[in-house]
């Protein structure tokens, strides 16, 4: 047995424990419908968190993802509604919106990245700033209300969230695909190794001829693209965006990453752990909704305790082995 095994197993043990708890709490927990709900639900935070794994592994942080998601959602809805007047094919409109979404996400990520690397502003401040900017932009675009997708278009597009393949909703497949690509990128490529190196020690990485700025900027662009992908499957769910869309996603994504075993200070990251972390967060909410044993007022406390215990399982066991 090595300490690595404990570290890897920690979040997984927590997930299994929660799963067993869920079964005891309510019979409905294991129903096909509930399991597919949980998986589809965790895909938003999960996909965003996979991007965040890269940023955090490299020693950065991105607080803007939640409001970026709201902003991209708003842009997509406005664009699609506007295109309804000029383009007949609904599928073409949706395709164009998806392309625009990826472009905005990539660009927004690049802005975060360049401000961090070229302008030498701390990532925390840069992304705190862009967080405020995107949040008020979407509120402005919606006139303080809610942007709603054209009904006909919404009906067609909703298939992307509600449709299934081999019994699993599309968002779950997208989540899986992003996770696999993220895993390969982080663990099997030069870029991934550079992320670890930059996160461990920026100066050493720099002297080892790694283009630190480029690696860091790339992680923010990846993060932006992940937000865009999450948005592409989020918009068809309710067909609307408002100033409340994606609130606190940034904290949930960071929590999922840390629960999964990635170090907040950088230098070590695990995509598999992040996926498990996102599932744990969704499971907690789901289980609390399935029981009335816990007072509503205490939901937040239960979530807090479980998050801390999950991280303790992983860190505590790891430290004991030292």
């Amino acid at each position: 047995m090595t300490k690595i095994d404990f570290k890897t197993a920690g979040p997984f043990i927590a997930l299994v424990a929660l799963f067993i708890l869920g079964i005891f709490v309510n019979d409905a927990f294991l129903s096909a419908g509930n399991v597919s709900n949980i998986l589809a639900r965790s895909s938003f935070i999960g996909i965003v968190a996979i991007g965040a794994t890269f940023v955090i592994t490299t020693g950065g942080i991105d607080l803007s993802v939640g409001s970026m998601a709201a902003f991209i959602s708003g842009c997509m809805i406005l664009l699609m509604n506007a295109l309804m007047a000029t383009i007949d094919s609904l599928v073409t409109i949706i395709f164009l919106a998806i392309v625009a979404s990826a472009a905005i996400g990539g660009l927004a990520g690049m802005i975060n990245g360049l401000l961090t690397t070229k302008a030498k502003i701390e990532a925390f401040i840069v992304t705190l700033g862009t967080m405020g900017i995107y949040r008020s932009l979407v509120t402005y675009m919606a006139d303080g209300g809610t942007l709603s997708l054209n009904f006909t278009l919404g009906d067609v597009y909703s298939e992307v969230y509600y449709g299934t393949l081999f019994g699993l909703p599309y968002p779950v497949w997208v989540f899986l695909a992003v996770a696999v690509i993220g895993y390969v990128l982080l663990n099997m490529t030069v870029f991934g190794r550079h992320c670890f190196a930059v996160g461990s020690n920026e100066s050493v990485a720099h002297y080892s001829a790694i283009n630190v700025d480029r690696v860091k900027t790339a992680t923010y662009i990846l993060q932006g693209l992940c937000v865009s992908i999450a948005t592409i499957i989020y918009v068809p769910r309710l067909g609307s965006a408002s100033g409340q869309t994606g609130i606190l996603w940034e904290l949930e994504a960071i929590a999922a990453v840390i629960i999964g075993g990635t170090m907040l200070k950088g230098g070590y990251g695990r995509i598999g752990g992040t996926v498990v972390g996102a599932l744990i967060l969704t499971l907690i909410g789901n289980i609390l909704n399935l029981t009335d044993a816990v007072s509503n007022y205490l939901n937040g406390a239960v979530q807090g305790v479980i998050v801390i215990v999950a991280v303790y399982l992983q860190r505590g066991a790891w430290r004991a082995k030292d």
Partner: protein
Amino acid sequence: MTNNEMKAVRAHSASGSLGEILCLSSLFAGTVINTVCKFAKHSILTLAASSLLLAVAPTLRAQTIGVSIPAATHGWAGGLNFHAEQTKARLEAANPGLKVVLVTANSASEQANDLEDLVAIHRMDALVILPFESAPLTGPVRNTKRRGVFVTVVDRGLSEPGIHDVYVAGNNAEMGRVSGEYIKERLDGNGKIVVLRGMPTVIDEQRFDGFMLALEGSNIEVLDDQYANWNRDDGFTVMQDFLSRFSEIDAVWAQDDDIAIGVIQAVRQARRQEELFIVGGGGMKDIVKRVLDGDELTPVDVLYPPSMISTAMELTALKFISDTPIEGEYILGSPLITRENAEDYYFPDSPF
């Protein structure tokens, strides 16, 4: 209203009053109307001229009503801003001697600053305020009142009694009661329901208590209640879990129209539209439209009108344009919006 627009309004009103003062002083001096007056509003010229003719000189400065409300950061507040702007336009068009200055704030402290500006720069005669929070704004409003400003408080009462001249508010307990009565009647006093609440606040508590009180004595079982934070995503998630958990649900009280939108999607996803109906609250145009169209899933809605700001502004204006006594407290009802009367509550241009 955006900051730019706000600046524009402020700039406009500032230049307006300057123009008036120049204009009036020149009239009193008996000089020929000078070029400055070309820029002043025609109506003010007429007003000033007629007062001169009658040799009566009441307050010749336009009466100013300051309106201070929270910025449009969520749906209901968006509706509030929409109605405030509409009412401002209507009041000013109908009463040339009346000026309405509308300011929006993002926090309680910003709103306190706004009050100072309204007094110092705009020299308002009356204030209509929907306080961001009751306690922190009680002091600033009291100070405004001491300077002789007529005070109308909307929706959230101040922490100290006796400050306001007029109080206009919705009735949260009544909103809960009306929703409860409808569900009880529609289910003939028998059935299983779930409740999605807002956030743990006084408003939510009053609505919930009113609702539960209305159900008392019936055989309606509330299977569970959970917070959905007054937003669509949480409405969707919580309802999905209720649907997994309970195989029989006869009705849903979503309390708020944003939550109701999420609930509708979850119910449609589970294809259980046939077995239940949803009662939201607020009067959001999307839901009112569904009621109007006779949607079986959302047969009714319960009003908690953001247009209460209009009620407050119109009442306050009466103080200046008539002798009508208006001081007192006005509690608005929460009528049931049904297919028959939905037309009256449908504002397609409003953001809410």
